[in-house]
């Protein structure tokens, strides 16, 4: 027994099994994403809906008024991948040629917003040169320090010049992976879901982190089974996956409300990061940081470890904020609640620091020295 969802295709109502609905939804979202920028997008989408409706009609009869999930699979197979290239001649050949030869298309430099601190420049550069984003960030900050701010200007210039990866194809080009050959858009949906779930498994404050990890392992095993007989397996797992993926896509459209907030927190993070790197450099080169001289006899690793721990603690609340302001949170309002929670956490942290400062004058002194040092910089 399956739940039935009624949908409107070009003005006519059709009843689909839930799993079929999710598949169709994913297909149409995919089509819309592919046709992004096409001036006739709405019209083509309406034509697609009509063609799907016509194909649905073929399955319906007096004794049957619900379209099954398997039938939707058939219909989508018949519709075929959406070839945005049919619209733009030049664009049509590049990805296809790459696909036919089995080689990858050239990488392109994009800003990648997912997981960005400020605008995604470092993220994009990291993807382009295939190195870890942390390395790029360190290089940028070092560059900024060594060139007295030129690095910041470089960042701003790149931020203006580099296009932002907005579509799946952009992201594929930025990361140098194969662009979606829409035949396996379902594969892509699955990998998205995996990313999504891995995030969940990673998140320490998530109470069901273990459950997420287990779910991911299960998913991975399923993938192997899928390759063999994906159709049968799909029917079992799909509904839930599609719903998650759809929620994710939906969130992406809402991320702009969060944009400014993320930007501010990102800038704070970068400043903290820069201060940390400067302190490290200063400790290594002069044996001082924030006005404290390294006491004679102490090995160098003590202040380094201390600075790392300090950065970790000070940056933690901002990282937390960043994470909770992520667009791919499941629900908008819950992201909001998480932010309020995080703000509380920061407040509590500073309250704690303040109390410590009151109780132990030396802590207070150290903090104000650090603050004065930062200001003098």
């Amino acid at each position, binding site marked *: 027994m399956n739940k039935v969802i009624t949908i409107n295709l070009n003005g006519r109502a059709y009843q689909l099994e839930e799993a079929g609905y999710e598949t169709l939804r994913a297909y149409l979202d995919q089509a819309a994403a592919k046709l992004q920028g096409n001036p006739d997008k709405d019209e083509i989408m309406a034509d697609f809906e009509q063609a799907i409706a016509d194909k649905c009609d073929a399955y319906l009869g007096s004794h049957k008024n619900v379209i099954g999930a398997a039938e939707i699979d058939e219909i989508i197979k018949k519709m075929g991948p959406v070839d945005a290239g*049919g619209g733009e001649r030049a664009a049509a050949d590049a990805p296809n040629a790459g696909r036919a030869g089995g080689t990858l298309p050239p990488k392109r430099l994009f800003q990648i917003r997912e997981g960005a601190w400020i605008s995604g420049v470092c993220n994009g550069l990291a993807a382009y040169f295939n190195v870890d984003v942390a390395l790029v960030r360190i290089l940028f900050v070092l560059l900024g320090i060594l060139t007295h701010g030129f690095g910041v200007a470089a960042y701003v210039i790149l931020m203006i010049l580099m296009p932002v990866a907005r579509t799946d194809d952009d992201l594929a080009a930025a990361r140098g992976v194969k662009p979606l050959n829409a035949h396996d858009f379902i594969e892509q949906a699955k990998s998205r879901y995996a990313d999504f779930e891995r995030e969940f498994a990673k998140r320490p404050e998530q109470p069901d982190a273990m459950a997420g990890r287990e779910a991911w392992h299960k998913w991975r095993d399923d993938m192997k089974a899928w390759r063999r007989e994906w159709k049968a397996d799909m029917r079992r797992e799909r509904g839930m996956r599609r719903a998650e993926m759809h929620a994710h896509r939906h969130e992406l459209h809402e991320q702009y409300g969060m944009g400014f907030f993320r930007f501010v927190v990102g800038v704070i993070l970068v400043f903290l990061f820069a201060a940390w790197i400067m302190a490290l450099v200063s400790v290594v080169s002069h044996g001082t940081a924030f006005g404290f001289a390294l006491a004679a006899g102490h090995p160098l690793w003590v202040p380094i470890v201390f600075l790392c721990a300090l950065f970790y603690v000070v940056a933690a609340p901002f990282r937390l904020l960043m994470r909770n302001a992520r667009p791919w949170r499941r629900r908008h309002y819950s992201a909001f609640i998480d932010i309020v929670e995080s703000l509380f956490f920061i407040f509590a942290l500073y309250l704690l620091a303040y109390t410590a400062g009151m109780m132990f004058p030396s802590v207070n002194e150290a903090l104000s020295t650090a603050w004065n040092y930062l200001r003098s910089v």
Partner: protein
Amino acid sequence: METKDKFDPIRKGLLEFVVLRVIASRKVYAADILKILDSTEFGTQEGTLYPLLSRLRREGLVEYEWIESDAGPPRKYYRLTAKGDEQRKVLERYWDDLTATIKNL
């Protein structure tokens, strides 16, 4: 590699020409075009054809009119514009040149 695969990009590239010819020969709507092409080497799918038709329309090569059908909603019937017909002739001439060249090699 099969013969068919070797000509894959060529068939793809010829699709626009083929569609122009189909539209020139009779009054068709999208599903007719698919059905006609399906019995040939140029079989294609909605996902490819619809964006192509929309581009041809944007370039002023084809136009359509809505015609009521006895089964279901009205359909878009396509026909070539004067410019589209001109384009078809140019492509046909070029195609003849191409095949002649290949034969004479």
